[in-house]
């Protein structure tokens, strides 16, 4: 086995934001040590599938909410990799933490800024204020990080065009190497949808062009729109996430974590107590060739690089491809497929169009 990407899930958070549907656990500081033990146990069991690692990604939850000593113990035990990313919430980043992370071999930090407008941060139930983001950013820079990413959310209830432009300008002013910009998803069943769903539906039309504005503004500021929701300067793509989009295998450890290895996808139990007890209760999905090919198409078309079609022919509907080409949404050249700019704005619909029946 030669898995080169490792994902480590750290579920703990100070507070669960209304829109979040990840596997999280609020507080539980008494369990942090036990959880790191459990992670290391799982890693030991799975280690044989790992080759020399290209990337490690610590996601959450809020990885930096985990007790620092436990986080350090974990980082100390993880195999080395070319890129080691840790997700962080701005309010958790102190100069000491920044230095400690850097010292523990972390190469990249992804900061959950989401917005620089206080009223929108309120809607999102985020704990940080705009100045916390700027401060955290400065601490990370001071500690020597040269690969920082900011997360922004747009399409927030009551967000005006001026709000959006302000957020983008404030983010650009910090000159991060990488930006992830997501449209807010009001997922069914979340507290957030309950509170804001109707308001969002009402504003849908007014916010219809926010995606286009985000892309135009960031490209104007010199960023590369290398994936549907991700932008980078120079060559600073997220190598870990690029692994997913290129269809590489990955090992995920932790509660609710997903792995895809050799045609099999499995998900650990989302229940913390079970996971701590070493009972992974894995949900396993066999991925046949057709499914893998469809996923390659779906993931590959999110990228700006052309998608080589070799091996994917049977996943493609030729009539759908012809229609998409005729509508100026996709281009086929040298046995590779690229979506045009408009095609990328409609990427989901275009992919559905291209998928073979």
């Amino acid at each position: 086995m030669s898995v080169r990407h490792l994902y480590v899930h750290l579920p703990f958070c100070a507070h669960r934001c209304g829109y979040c549907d990840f596997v999280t656990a609020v507080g539980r500081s008494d369990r942090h040590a036990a959880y790191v033990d459990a992670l290391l146990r799982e890693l030991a069991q799975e280690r044989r599938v790992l080759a020399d690692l290209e990337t490690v990604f610590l996601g959450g939850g809020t990885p930096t909410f985990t007790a620092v000593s436990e986080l350090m113990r974990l980082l100390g035990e993880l195999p080395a990799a070319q890129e080691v990313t840790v997700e962080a919430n701005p309010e958790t980043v102190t100069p000491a933490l920044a230095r400690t992370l850097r010292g523990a071999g972390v190469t990249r930090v992804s900061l959950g800024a989401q917005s620089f407008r206080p009223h929108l941060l309120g809607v999102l139930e985020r704990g940080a204020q705009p100045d916390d983001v700027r401060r955290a950013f400065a601490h990370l820079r001071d500690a020597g990080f040269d690969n920082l990413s900011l997360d922004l959310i747009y399409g927030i209830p009551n967000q005006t065009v001026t709000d959006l432009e302000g957020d983008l300008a404030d983010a650009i002013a910090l000159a991060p190497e990488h930006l992830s910009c997501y449209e807010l998803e009001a997922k069914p069943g979340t507290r957030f949808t309950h509170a804001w769903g109707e308001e969002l539906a009402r504003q849908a039309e007014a916010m219809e062009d926010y995606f286009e504005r985000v892309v135009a503004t960031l490209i104007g500021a010199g960023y590369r729109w290398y994936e549907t929701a991700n932008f980078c300067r120079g060559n600073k793509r997220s190598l870990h996430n690029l692994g997913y989009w290129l269809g590489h295998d990955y090992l995920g450890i932790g509660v609710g974590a997903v792995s895809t290895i050799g045609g099999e996808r499995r998900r650990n139990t989302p229940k913390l107590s079970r996971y701590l007890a070493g009972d992974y209760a894995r949900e396993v999905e066999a991925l046949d060739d057709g499914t893998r090919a469809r996923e390659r198409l779906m993931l590959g078309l999110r990228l700006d690089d052309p998608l080589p079609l070799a091996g994917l022919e049977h996943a493609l509907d030729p009539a759908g491809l012809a229609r998409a080409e005729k509508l100026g949404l996709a281009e086929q050249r040298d046995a590779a497929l690229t979506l045009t700019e408009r095609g990328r704005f409609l990427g989901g619909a275009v992919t559905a169009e291209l998928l073979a029946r």
Partner: protein
Amino acid sequence: MDQSHIRNFSIIAHIDHGKSTLADRILELTDAVSAREMREQVLDTMDLERERGITIKAQAVRVTWKGHELNLIDTPGHVDFTYEVSRSLQACEGALLVVDAAQGIEAQTLANAYLAIENGLEIVPVANKIDLPQADPEGTAVEVADLLGDDPSRVIRISAKTGTNVAEVLDAIVERVPAPEGDPDAASRALVFDSSYDQYRGVVAFVRVVDGSFARRESLQSMATGTRFEAEELGFFSPTMRPVDSLSAGEVGYVITGLKDVSRLRVGDTITSVARRAKQPLPGYKDVKPMVFAGLFPTDSDAYPELRDALERLKLNDAALFYEPETSQALGFGFRCGFLGLLHMEIVRERLEREFDLDLLVTAPNVAYRVQEKSSDEWREVHNPAEFPREVEEVEEPYVKASIIVPKEYVGTVMEQNNDRRGTFDHLEYLSPERVHLTYELPLAEIVLDYYDQLKSRTRGYASFDYDMIGFKPGDLVRVDVLVGGEPVDALSLIVYRDFAYERGRLLVEKLREEIPRQMFDVPIQAAIGARVIARETVKARRKDVLAKCYGGDITRKRKLLEKQKAGKRRMKQVGAVEVPQEAFLAVLNIGKGQQ
């Protein structure tokens, strides 16, 4: 039995006025069926009939009462089956006219009563449901007597539910209804007043023997269709099948023919003996023609063979059903079906969905048109707007005489509705100081689209309505085509009265704009007469459609979302590059609704 002791009668009643309950009481009272073994309402056999409270297929039941043989011939209760009703009535000498004493006369009662009178039947009027607190037996008796030119004292007041005075009804049948007067020695003739198809025994014809007699195993022939067959079995219902060796003049019964298709032995045809052939058929045979047409398409195009088989099987039992394959650019392979009327259409559709478990898309119904094209002196009938020529010399459309009974305060609104629908006023009369009977001549096309619904809402449900076909008349009609994304959509074409074309076209494109989801490009929707666009709307292109984030943890879920999106596309019908949901094809059904 000696003809003088035979009485053949049917029951005329509006839905829910108590026909089936009275029939049940008659069977009980004459010991044809014991109360214990009696299922509720034995005459109605099909579930569907029971649910709708109407009878589709007539049957005849023989009972005995005080030394007489009484044949109760059941009639369908609805306008679409006027011809079948008229044949059933022709098999009788008398009819019970049953009116709900709490409701009074309704339009359907009136239509069938007139039909009975035209057929020369002796009418025995009955006021039913006198046990209800709100019943007005006296007022109803006066209303009914006025209609018949009879004396109110001769209207029998009964409660079929409790059995009160039902024996008097049987006595009145024996006393007032004349005995049959056919010639028992003449060449044999029998009227087919109904038929049904049995999987094992073939076509079962319900007959009234008029002259002569028929014996088991005799070679028989139908005079209109010329079909030959053998009487495999003869008999009557009482209420179950009782085989006999022969049926003779005046009697009512069944003939099992072994024929494999009801269309070979049509209602109204005359059966005679091959050995002793009658010279003249009985009068009144008509080849009933469907007047209302609609396209039936399987929602899932793979179900086309099942739909074809189901229609074949329904046709075995329903000679009036017409169908032929239709190919629509928009909806794929299906059938253009012809029906006697809207209720017939609804029944067929429900049977297809319920008995055959089919998921159907039924296009907006249209009527039959007679068309003479420019540069041709031949007339042809058009059943599908998509085949309606764009250049016509002359067009004719079917007309009906509509009969409406309403409380007097609604006369104004009913007249307004009829005027809006190209109606020509014919007649108005007061049935009582409170109730008015109105008749109008109207194009059938105006009735086909939600006329009855609108009438009901205008009159708060008080109007009762019936109609009769009166033939074709010229009409100033145009074909309006709909273009979606520049492509004409055959399934949305409609034929409209020229003065209504702009309004209809505008409403239709507005409705379509709501029904067609936004696509990856702008979609113009146009209504046009020939090359002239009369209305236009645009479905604006979507500007974004992406799955916001997609990482290792949710690839499966995101893939399933896209696969679902793809499956959703498959249910859409492709018009050029535009994906049109099936519901949009029903938009034409809904235009004009919610206007008033």
